[in-house]
């Protein structure tokens, strides 16, 4: 346990000291001293040097609290303690502090025995507030997080089985309910994306287009067990002579049907507004002119990556709730971008982290995979995802106790800044403010709307909680962490390199 002390002592204003109770009494700092809830025989109190008026103060107390695994009270600066620094640092090496540490194996053993305690990421806030972090950490094993919102980078792949005579769908054209599918794989493998539209859809020819039906709706119908129509054409070969295929397909007849989403569960998201003089139709919904409304899209305090801001438990291989069934995290998502401004408690204020996820479509439910239409924009798929966070330490629990008021989102103008890809930010608001129904920006009261279903996320977090408490769902330790802060993973803009037009071609 000595390491944290040395670490804390590295910075002059972030030093940790030990001193005896008598010294504290003498210095009349008792009420303000950092009193760790220790065992009765513990004879030392900690002194913590920090500028408690600075914005970092909360973070410093929090970091200290996490490092020493105890609930702490506010501290006051006492420069006199500095002279004891070396001595006290040495003393600290001899003091044993009991820490709360659990392993996923231990938690799984409790789940199997039906003794695990899971709570959702909303309930955990009150529990930590009432019982303190140390006690809550010993009582809670898992915190369930969730989100249910349109997630465009979603899709399915499936194998239709070989028809008689055989046909290679690849390099031909394949449509499912008239929605174009991608078949650039082996003969009978098909991939269908959530945002694909039938060729016959008028798009935005008459703006704003309706976008009533597309890939997301096909996925929902397939999951519902409805027949969908495949129509495919190809060129025919000696081994795959068939050139046309027109048939009904049902999910139960497919060899494999897999939901594979390469970017889901954005850690945080823009709040969209419209500064222009006309209504605009965006992927974040209808935005009224002159700051007429603001639309956000996050489950906030329930959202998976906002409860594990540094990806300490969520990683490749994590076992999750996906679309009403089970799934796994397969990789970090595309545009994963952890190096963004963060609040003192580590929560990103911008989009930041993303996840790529995979799961067996056959056991999923249409309730949690819903085709959606965004007027004037296109189609998508609303995906329900639930991720359990194992309470391996007080630090991890502390992160899950984050509230809507602690989570900040960035307000962006979708009439100009977003489409022109400039970095202009209108302001920052908390999810607490967003959920109040009105935010204040540029001297205006702006009513808010949401695209992410909080009540849906709450329901998922409760389903996952029931699965865990009922011994039906085990946790998987990640086999590889997803890239964190300063790991070198950053989203780059498109590198535009004009192509020289060559008349010889």
């Amino acid at each position: 346990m000595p390491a944290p002390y040395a670490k804390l002592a590295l910075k002059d204003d972030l030093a940790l000291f030990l001193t005896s109770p008598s010294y504290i009494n003498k210095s009349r700092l008792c009420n303000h001293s950092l009193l760790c809830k220790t065992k009765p025989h513990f004879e030392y109190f900690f002194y913590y040097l920090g500028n408690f008026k600075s914005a970092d103060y909360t973070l410093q107390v929090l970091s200290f609290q996490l490092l020493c695994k105890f609930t702490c009270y506010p501290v006051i600066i006492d420069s006199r303690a500095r002279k004891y620094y070396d001595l006290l640092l040495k003393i600290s090496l001899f003091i044993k502090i009991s820490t709360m540490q659990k392993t996923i194996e231990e938690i799984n053993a409790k789940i199997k025995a039906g003794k695990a305690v899971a709570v959702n990421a909303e309930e955990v806030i009150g529990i930590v507030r009432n019982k303190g972090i140390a006690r809550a950490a010993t009582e809670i094993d898992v915190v369930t997080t969730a989100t249910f919102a349109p997630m465009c980078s979603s899709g399915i792949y499936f194998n239709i089985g070989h028809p008689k005579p055989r046909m290679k769908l690849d390099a031909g054209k394949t449509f499912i309910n008239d929605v174009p599918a991608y078949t650039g794989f082996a003969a009978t493998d098909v991939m269908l994306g959530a945002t694909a539209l039938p060729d016959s859809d008028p798009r935005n020819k008459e703006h704003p287009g309706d976008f009533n039906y597309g890939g997301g709706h096909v996925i929902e119908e397939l999951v519902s067990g409805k027949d969908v129509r495949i129509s495919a054409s190809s060129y025919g070969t000696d081994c795959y002579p068939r050139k046309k295929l027109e048939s009904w397909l049902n999910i139960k007849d497919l060899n494999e049907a897999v939901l594979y989403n390469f970017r889901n569960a954005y850690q945080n998201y823009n709040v969209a507004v419209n500064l222009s003089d006309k209504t605009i139709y965006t992927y974040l919904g209808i935005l009224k002119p002159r700051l007429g409304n603001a639309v956000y899209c996050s489950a906030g305090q329930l959202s998976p990556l906002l409860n594990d801001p540094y990806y300490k438990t969520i990683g490749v291989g994590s076992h999750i709730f996906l679309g009403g069934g089970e799934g796994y995290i397969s990789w970090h998502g595309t545009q994963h971008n952890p190096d963004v401004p963060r609040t003192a408690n580590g929560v990103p204020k911008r989009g930041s982290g993303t996840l790529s996820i995979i799961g067996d479509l056959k056991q999923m439910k249409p309730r949690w995979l819903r085709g959606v239409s965004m007027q004037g924009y296109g189609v998508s798929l609303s995906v329900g995802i639930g991720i359990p966070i194992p309470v391996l330490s007080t630090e991890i629990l502390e992160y899950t106790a984050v509230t809507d008021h602690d989570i900040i989102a960035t307000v962006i103008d979708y009439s100009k800044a977003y489409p022109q890809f400039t970095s202009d930010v209108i302001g920052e608001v908390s999810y607490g403010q967003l959920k109040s129904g009105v935010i204040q920006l540029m001297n205006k009261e702006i009513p808010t709307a949401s695209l992410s279903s909080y009540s849906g996320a709450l329901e998922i977090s409760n389903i996952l909680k029931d699965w865990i408490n009922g011994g039906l769902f085990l946790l998987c330790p990640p086999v590889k962490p997803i890239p964190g802060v300063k790991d070198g993973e950053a989203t780059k803009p498109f590198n535009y390199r004009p192509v020289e037009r060559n008349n010889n071609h």
Partner: protein
Amino acid sequence: MKVARKIVLHFPAQLVEKAIAYRLVKDFDLQFNILKASIIPDSEGFIVLELSGEKDAYNQGIRFLTRAGVKIEPLSQNVSRNEEKCTHCGACLTVCPTGAFEVEDASRRIFFNHDKCIVCGNCLKACPPRAMELHF
């Protein structure tokens, strides 16, 4: 006693080109505020309006319309929410001009208040899962 109700008047094809609504004002001293209308010559039409006035006059006005062949329905039956489809996301909250959608406090489910709906239709296309349905 004054009454004010939102109603939908359905005009059969043969009535579409006859002037009827003005008589509500002239003969029965009623006030109306047209919220939405669709009138196509030689075809069926409808008017959504808020009709108000003294109770007796109001009832007489309604009787006059019924006798003239106009079918009358209360407005709230005309936009409804398909509960199976609604995901309670909240995209409808700021597109409704009358604030008919409200967030229930703890659950954050979205409550659709029929009484406030004026059947403007804004929510129909703004709803991502297309849960809001227009019925005639």
